[in-house]
C-alpha cells in the first residue's frame, strides 16, 4: 500500500512539473510569437504544393508559386497599376539574375550579362555555367520544352557561354516571344554544382532530388515543407535579384475547405487568401474587417465554346445565333457578381484594336438570334447539352441555368451536364462535347500567342475546334512579323475573323479576389496566378 501511494505521489509531482514546464514554454512562445508574427505572412490556399520543381509534370499551380518566389530567372516583368491592384506589365521586362541584355539588330541573338554579385542560398556564386545547365535542363523536360518552343528555344546549342558572366542565346529567326519565354515559370536558374552532385546515371537532371529540395538563388529559401500540409519560406538576405522583401517568413498552408479559409482570414489568423468562393468574398467586403483587392486576370478569359466541327454548330449562323441569345449581363451579375471585365457588348462603331482577348460585338438580342437560327435552317430550334466541370461549378452552375432559360426562348433545349475535371478534359480533347463552358489562361498575353493556342490545331486548347486555313496562315505570319504596323494589321484581321466565326464566345476576364488583412499591401497579379510574396508589405 505504502509503496503504491509513494509512486502515485511521484507521478502526480511529475505531472505538475510537466504542466508548469508547459506553461512556461507557452509564455516564452507567445513572446517570441508576437515579435515574429508581424514579419510573418500566413497564406492559406485550397490546392497543395506537390513539388519544388515546377517543371515536373503534374506540378500544381501552387508549386509554380513557390518556384516563382524561391528561384530567380534571367529576366522578369515590371508591374503596373490596374484598378485597385497591380499587374505584371507584359511589355516591359527587367533583369532578375541578368543585369542587362542586348538584342542584335536582326533580333536573332540576345546577349545576357549576369549580376556579378549574385549567389545561391548556399553562398556559391551564380555563373553562366549554372544558367546554361538550367536552360538545357528545361529543354530536356517534355512539358517545359513545349513551352520554350513557343519562343523558338528548342536546342541546347542555342545557349552559349561567352564567359563567366556572359551568355548568348541564338535563334534561327527573330522570335518576339523568345525573351518572354525566359521569364516564365520553367527556366529557373538552378545551382548546377549542387544539383549535379545529386544526379544519378538514370536521372542526369536530378529531377528526383530537385522535386524535394531547392537549389536556388531567389528571395526566399525553403525552411521546411510538409507535402499536403504546409511550406515555410525564410527570406534570403543575400538576394540580389531585387529590393529585399518585407516579410522574413512566409507560411503557405493547405486548407482545402473554402469556408474554413474564409473564417481564418476574417478572424485575422491568416493574412491572405486568393481562392475564396465569390459569395464569401462579397460578404467579407461588406463586413469591412478585411481588405479585398480585385484585379482582372489580364491573360485569361472565360467563354462558352461551340464544337464547330459537328452539326448544328458547324453552321456559323447557329454559333452567331446562340451568341446573340446568351444572357450576358444576367450571367455577369449572377455568376461572377460583376467582378471582372466583360468581353461582350462591344459597340460596332468603335475601331478594332490589335489586342486579344477583347470585347466581342455580341449582346443579348433574341430577335436577331431567332432570325439567324431560322436562316440556318433551325426555325424551331434544336436540343443540345451544355457541359462544365465540377471545379468551376460555383461559377458555371448559375451560368448554365441562366443559359438554359435564355436559349429556351429561341427554341433551343439545353440539357445541363456537370463533369468531373479529368473526364471533362478528356472529352474536350477528344472533341466530344458540343457546347460547354471553360476558362483558360495563357502565360504570355500576346495576341498571336493566344491565336496560336486557342484557334488552331487538333488539341485540347482549340476549344471551338476552329479550322481556317487563311487564319492559320496569318497566325504564322504574325509570329515572325517584325514590323509593328503589319503585325497590328494581322491581329486586327484575325480578331475580325474570330468575331465573325465565333468558335468560342468569350464572356469575361474573371477577376482574382485577393482577400487580405487590412494592413497588407502590394498585391500583384501575375500570369501564373500565384502570389509574389516579394512585393507584399505589412504597414504598421
Amino acid at each position, binding site marked *: 500500500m505504502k509503496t503504491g501511494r509513494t509512486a502515485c505521489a511521484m507521478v502526480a509531482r511529475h505531472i505538475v512539473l510537466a504542466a508548469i514546464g508547459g506553461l512556461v514554454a507557452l509564455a516564452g*512562445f507567445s513572446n517570441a510569437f508576437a515579435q515574429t508574427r508581424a514579419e510573418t505572412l500566413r497564406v492559406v490556399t485550397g490546392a497543395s504544393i506537390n513539388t519544388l520543381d515546377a517543371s515536373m509534370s503534374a506540378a500544381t499551380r501552387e508549386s509554380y508559386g513557390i518556384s516563382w518566389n524561391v528561384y530567380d530567372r534571367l529576366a522578369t516583368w515590371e508591374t503596373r497599376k490596374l484598378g485597385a491592384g497591380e499587374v505584371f506589365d507584359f511589355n516591359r521586362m527587367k533583369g532578375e539574375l541578368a543585369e542587362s541584355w542586348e538584342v542584335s539588330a536582326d533580333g536573332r541573338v540576345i546577349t545576357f550579362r549576369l549580376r556579378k554579385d549574385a549567389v545561391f542560398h548556399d553562398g556559391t556564386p551564380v555563373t553562366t555555367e549554372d544558367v546554361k545547365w538550367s536552360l538545357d535542363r528545361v529543354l530536356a523536360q*517534355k*512539358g517545359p520544352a513545349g*513551352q520554350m518552343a513557343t519562343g523558338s528555344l528548342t536546342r541546347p546549342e542555342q545557349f552559349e557561354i561567352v564567359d563567366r558572366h556572359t551568355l548568348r542565346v541564338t535563334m534561327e529567326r527573330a522570335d518576339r516571344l523568345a525573351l518572354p519565354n525566359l521569364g516564365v515559370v520553367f527556366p529557373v536558374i538552378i545551382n548546377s554544382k549542387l544539383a549535379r552532385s545529386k544526379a544519378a546515371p538514370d536521372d542526369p537532371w536530378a529531377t528526383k532530388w530537385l522535386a524535394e529540395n531547392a537549389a536556388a538563388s531567389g528571395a526566399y529559401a525553403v525552411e521546411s515543407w510538409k*507535402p499536403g500540409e504546409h511550406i515555410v519560406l525564410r527570406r534570403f538576405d543575400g538576394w540580389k535579384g531585387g529590393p529585399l522583401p518585407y516579410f522574413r517568413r512566409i507560411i503557405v498552408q493547405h486548407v*482545402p475547405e473554402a469556408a474554413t479559409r474564409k*473564417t*481564418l482570414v476574417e478572424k485575422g489568423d491568416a493574412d491572405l487568401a486568393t481562392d475564396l468562393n465569390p459569395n464569401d468574398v462579397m460578404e467579407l467586403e461588406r463586413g469591412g474587417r478585411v481588405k479585398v483587392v480585385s484585379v482582372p486576370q489580364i491573360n485569361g478569359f472565360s467563354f462558352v465554346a461551340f464544337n464547330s466541327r459537328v452539326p448544328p454548330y458547324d453552321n456559323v449562323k447557329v454559333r452567331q445565333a446562340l451568341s446573340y441569345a446568351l444572357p450576358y449581363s444576367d450571367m455577369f451579375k449572377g455568376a461572377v457578381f460583376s467582378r471582372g471585365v466583360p468581353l461582350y457588348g462591344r459597340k460596332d462603331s468603335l475601331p478594332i484594336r490589335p489586342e486579344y482577348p477583347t470585347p466581342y460585338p455580341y449582346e443579348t438580342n433574341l430577335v436577331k438570334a431567332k432570325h439567324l437560327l431560322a436562316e440556318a435552317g433551325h426555325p424551331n430550334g434544336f436540343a443540345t447539352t451544355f457541359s462544365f466541370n465540377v471545379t468551376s461549378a460555383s461559377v458555371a452552375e448559375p451560368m448554365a441555368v441562366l443559359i438554359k432559360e435564355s436559349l429556351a426562348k429561341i427554341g433551343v433545349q439545353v440539357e445541363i451536364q456537370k463533369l468531373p475535371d*479529368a473526364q471533362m478534359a*478528356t472529352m474536350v480533347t477528344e472533341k466530344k462535347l458540343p457546347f460547354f463552358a471553360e476558362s483558360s489562361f495563357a502565360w504570355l498575353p500576346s495576341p498571336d500567342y493566344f491565336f496560336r493556342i486557342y484557334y488552331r490545331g487538333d488539341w485540347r486548347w482549340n476549344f471551338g475546334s476552329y479550322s481556317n486555313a487563311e487564319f492559320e496562315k496569318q497566325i504564322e505570319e504574325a509570329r515572325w512579323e517584325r514590323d509593328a504596323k503589319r503585325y497590328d494589321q494581322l491581329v486586327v484581321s484575325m480578331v475580325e475573323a474570330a468575331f465573325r466565326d465565333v468558335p468560342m464566345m468569350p464572356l469575361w476576364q474573371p477577376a482574382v479576389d485577393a482577400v487580405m488583412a487590412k494592413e497588407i499591401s502590394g498585391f500583384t497579379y501575375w500570369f501564373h496566378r500565384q502570389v509574389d510574396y516579394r512585393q507584399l508589405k505589412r504597414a504598421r
Partner: protein
Amino acid sequence: MIGNGQRGALLFLVRRLSAALPVLLGVAIFTFVLMRVLPGDPAIFFASGPAAGEEEIRELRAKMGLDRSIPEQLWIYFKDLASGNLGMSLTTGRPVVADIAERLPASLELALFALVIALAIALPLGVAAALSPGSILDHAVRMICTAGVSLPTFVTGLILIYVFYYLLGVAPDPTGRLNIFLIAPPSRTGFLLVDTLIAGDFATFMAALHQLALPSATMSIYVLAPIARMTRASMLAVLSSDFVRTAVAMGLGRGTVIVVYAFRNAVIPVLTTVGVVFSSMLGANVLVEKVFSWPGVGSYALDALLGSDYAPVQGFVLLMAIIFVAVNFLIDTLYSLADPRVTVE
C-alpha cells in the same frame, strides 16, 4: 495443454488470414479495373500548357504504363504489390506508400479519439435510456441521437468552428493537427499525442489535444446515434430476460445486475456496431478531414479520385480492406472476452 492452446490460436490466425486473402485480392482487382473503366484519361488531364499535343499525351501515357493492355497492367501492378510498392501518386509526386504511412496515423488518431469520446457518451446514454424506456430521459437520448445522425458532418464541423473558434475564440484555428507556429516533435509513431509525450513536450501535447477537440467532437456526434441506439435496444432485450429477473429476485445489487449481468451480455451487438462504425470513420469521413484541413487518408483518396490519379485510389481501397479485415478480427476476439461461451472459429 498450454502448447495446444497456442498452436490452436496460431492455426486460427493463419486460417483467418488465408480466408481474408481472396477478399483482398478481389478488392485489388475490382478497384484496379474500375479505375480504368471510369471515364477520364489521366494522361490528358496531366498534360498541360503548350505541350499538351497528341505526341506529348502519348508519351505521358507510356510513362504511366497506360498504353499497355489492362491484363498486362494488372500483372505489373501485382508484381509491384508483391514487393510492397503501391506506385507513385501524380498529384503529390511521391510514392503512395510514403503518403499513406504519413497520413494514416493522422486519420487513426482522429478516429480512435473520436470513438473513445463517442463510447464514453453513447454507452451510458444507451444504458440509461434502456433502464427507463418511454421516460423523458429516453426521449431526450432519442432526440440527441436523431439530431447527431441527421446533421451531415461538414455542417456540424462548420457550426462547431463558427461557435468555438469564430465567436468564442476558445478553439484553435481549424488547420490540421498542430498550430502552424509550433514545432512538431520528431515522428516516432506518427500519433502526435504519443510522439509529444515520448518527447516529453507537454505544451505541444496540450496544443495537439486542443487541435484534436473540434474534429473529434464532430465525428463523435455523428456516430453517437448508432452506438447509443444499439446499446439501448440490446440492453432492453437483455433486461427482460429470465436470468436478469432471477438475479434481481435473488436480491443482487442493482449495480451488479446492470453492469455484470445485463451489460456484459448486451455488449456483443454493440461491439459489432462499433467495428462497423470505426471502419467507416476512418474511410468515409472525408468531409471532416476537409473542413478541418486534417491531413488524413480520406481527403487524400478523394483528391486522387477527382484527379483520375489511379495509384493512390487503389492503395487507399486496399488499405481500407485490410483495416476492415483487421477490425473484424479484433471484434471477433473481443466477443470471446465479453462472452466466454463464444469461441472464435
